[in-house]
């Protein structure tokens, strides 16, 4: 009797496993990681923030046969989580800022394999160009953010001054604020932390005619313009015009100080007003162009991406690519994408959503104009990670007394050695 029962049990288990396998055969499950841009990201993708439903439920209802295993991960953890999932072979779609290392390691599926043509043609070409290595597009943009000078209007009116446009004016304005408020308000904010120290580097070098690379993609980290620009930024710290600890105070600390009325000016993202509103800030704020050494206009933009990973074990590559394409189509469809971009307060990456966004918020038109002339980080170069960390380390070392010239010389040497080593390996 016991033997019969045991056999029956085994039989039932086999049948149930078989039915699960049969179910699995018909379905494609995509493992997706999305970055947490704000407090509502998770609710929009997984909760009820999409008009009472969420992205995953809506997608699965409209695309039977495709399941999403979607996880919203904070920016602090996303690199760790992504690496772990890559090691486990459980990552199909990733939303992150960098892509070059994944591409050079042969982990990414080219965009041409999975992105439908109509959608591909909808992306701003200038954005797509930022994700090209060796003539192959490896990722698509999901959004962009531009930076501007944000200032406390009430303070400026009280002092009777205008926001600065040149570096000389910036120093004068900082001194005026310092004197007028008797040192109780920080005139200027600088973030040289591991969070966004590379952005500070970009603001100042771009404002002095410098750059990370030249026209032929050669690194120019220790150019005279770059060294002079960072020396100027360090001078602002030394003169007491900034927050006291730029190496540990992140841009969120600065934004909080600005929102609390303790900081008069800072370079911040286009969604600063949304950020401050969420903090119940009563600061009357406005934005203008980032001051440069000679007053010329300059813009810095940041862009994040969506990329698809290879899965060589999948027996039906075409079906998998099609499923990833459907995910992208659904995400960028104006009825979904417009809501997401406005909720996060960023700028769109596709033409089809511009009209609706501008109708919803006319400020978008101004920001999109600013975006036109902006420079992006050279993220398509595989040394970018090392450069990003290197410039932050250089800034932080300089804050503790090291020579910025020596720091950038050493960094340039290291990066050039990496480029040469990679070239030698490729040969």
């Amino acid at each position, binding site marked *: 009797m016991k033997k019969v029962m045991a056999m029956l049990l085994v039989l039932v288990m086999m049948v149930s496993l078989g039915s699960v396998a049969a179910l699995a055969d018909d379905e494609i499950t995509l493992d997706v990681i999305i970055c947490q841009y704000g407090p509502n990201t998770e609710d929009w993708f997984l909760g009820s923030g999409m008009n009472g439903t969420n992205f995953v439920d809506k997608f699965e209802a409209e695309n039977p046969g495709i399941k999403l295993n979607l996880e919203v991960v904070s920016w602090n953890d996303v690199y760790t989580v992504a*690496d772990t999932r890559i090691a486990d072979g459980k990552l199909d779609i990733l939303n992150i800022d960098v892509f070059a*290392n994944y591409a050079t390691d042969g982990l990414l599926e080219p965009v041409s394999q999975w992105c439908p043509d109509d959608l591909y043609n909808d992306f701003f070409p200038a954005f797509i160009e930022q994700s090209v290595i060796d003539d192959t597009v490896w990722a698509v943009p999901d959004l962009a953010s531009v930076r501007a000078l944000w200032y406390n209007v009430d303070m400026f009116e009280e002092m009777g001054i205008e926001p600065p446009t040149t570096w000389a004016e910036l120093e004068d304005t900082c001194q005026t604020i310092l004197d007028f408020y008797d040192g109780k308000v920080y005139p200027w904010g600088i973030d040289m932390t*591991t969070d966004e120290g590379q952005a500070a580097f970009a603001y100042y070098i771009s404002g002095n005619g410098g750059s990370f690379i030249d026209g032929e993609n050669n690194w120019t980290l220790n150019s005279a313009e770059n060294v002079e620009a960072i020396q100027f930024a360090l001078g602002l710290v030394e003169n007491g015009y900034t927050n006291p600890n730029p*190496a*540990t105070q992140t841009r969120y600390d600065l934004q909080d100080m600005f929102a609390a009325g303790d900081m008069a000016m800072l370079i911040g993202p286009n969604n600063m007003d949304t950020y401050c509103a969420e903090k119940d800030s009563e600061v009357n704020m406005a934005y203008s162009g980032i001051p440069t050494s000679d007053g010329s206009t300059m813009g810095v933009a940041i862009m994040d991406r969506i990329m698809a990973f290879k899965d060589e074990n999948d027996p039906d590559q075409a079906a998998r690519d099609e499923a990833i394409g459907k995910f992208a189509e659904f995400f960028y469809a104006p009825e979904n994408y417009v809501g997401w971009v406005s909720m996060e307060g960023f700028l769109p990456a596709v033409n089809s959503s511009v009209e609706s966004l501008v109708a919803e918020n006319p400020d978008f038109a101004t920001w999109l104009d600013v975006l036109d002339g902006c420079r992006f980080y050279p993220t398509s170069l595989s040394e970018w*990670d090392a450069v990003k960390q290197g410039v932050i380390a250089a800034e932080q*070392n300089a804050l503790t007394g090291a020579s910025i010239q020596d720091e950038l010389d050493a960094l340039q040497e290291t990066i050039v050695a990496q480029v040469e080593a990679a070239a030698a390996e490729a040969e």
Partner: protein
Amino acid sequence: MNKTLQNKIKPYIWLLPSIILMAVFVIFPIVIVFKLAFSEVSKSGVVGGFVGFKNFRDAIGLPAFKTVMLNTLYWVVSVVGLSTVLGFIIAMVLNQKFHGRKIARAILVLPWATSLVIQASVWNYIIKYEYGNLNNILLNLGIIKEAINWRSSYQIEFIWECGVGIFVTIPFVTFCVLSGLQSIDSTLYEAADIDGASYWDKLWRITVPLVKPSLTVSTVLNIIYVFNSFPIVYTMTKGAPANKTDTLVTYLYMLNYYNRQKGPATALSVIGFLVLCLCAGVYMVSVMRKEEDL
């Protein structure tokens, strides 16, 4: 199976679950880390072939290596050393009979029972320049006229980190020593009193020798915990500026997940493991020898 054989096998059967757990959760990861330390690992974590000691050479050649190793030494010595001395003194006080002793003991547990991340975050707020409690209290009491930047240099920030480390480690030492103190037979002190021994005679000739086994346990465990402690440094400074406040553990984490230099990071973790084994081993052997000499 005869009884003698059964008795011989029995202990091993009882130990088997622990051995399996140790093998899966301790030995296996250590073996993997050693393997990775000698392999090429890409920035995305793709493991390549054997590269000999390249990762170790790269790790030792990193600009921050010397600073980080020195910081780790200062961190372990100061936190373990000072928390042992202070914990011992507090344990001596708590071993006396006084009103509110139970409450004092309960309060002492709090820093130990609270998460290290929360402790470090709270201290971050306390010493914050702009809205910190310390500045607010001192300003309100009229002790200072202007807020003080308690984190004006990286050296001071590192001292704060060590201070928080000491603060959260003291309870563990105190309770280890307290358990040792309570096991000392009071007749020993009575006999010493009759012989006319002073307070210091009793401390050095009775208390310290008899508490030594408890102190050995707490010191060895503290060396391991403090060496591997991550939350305080990471929460307070993330090693900034430019790794000048990093210890080995926070540095290798940043190297692995932020700088994505996974090969050198695993090599560093192997170096850390070996240093820790050496320190704890030397300490244990020296203490055991002294105990045998007694």
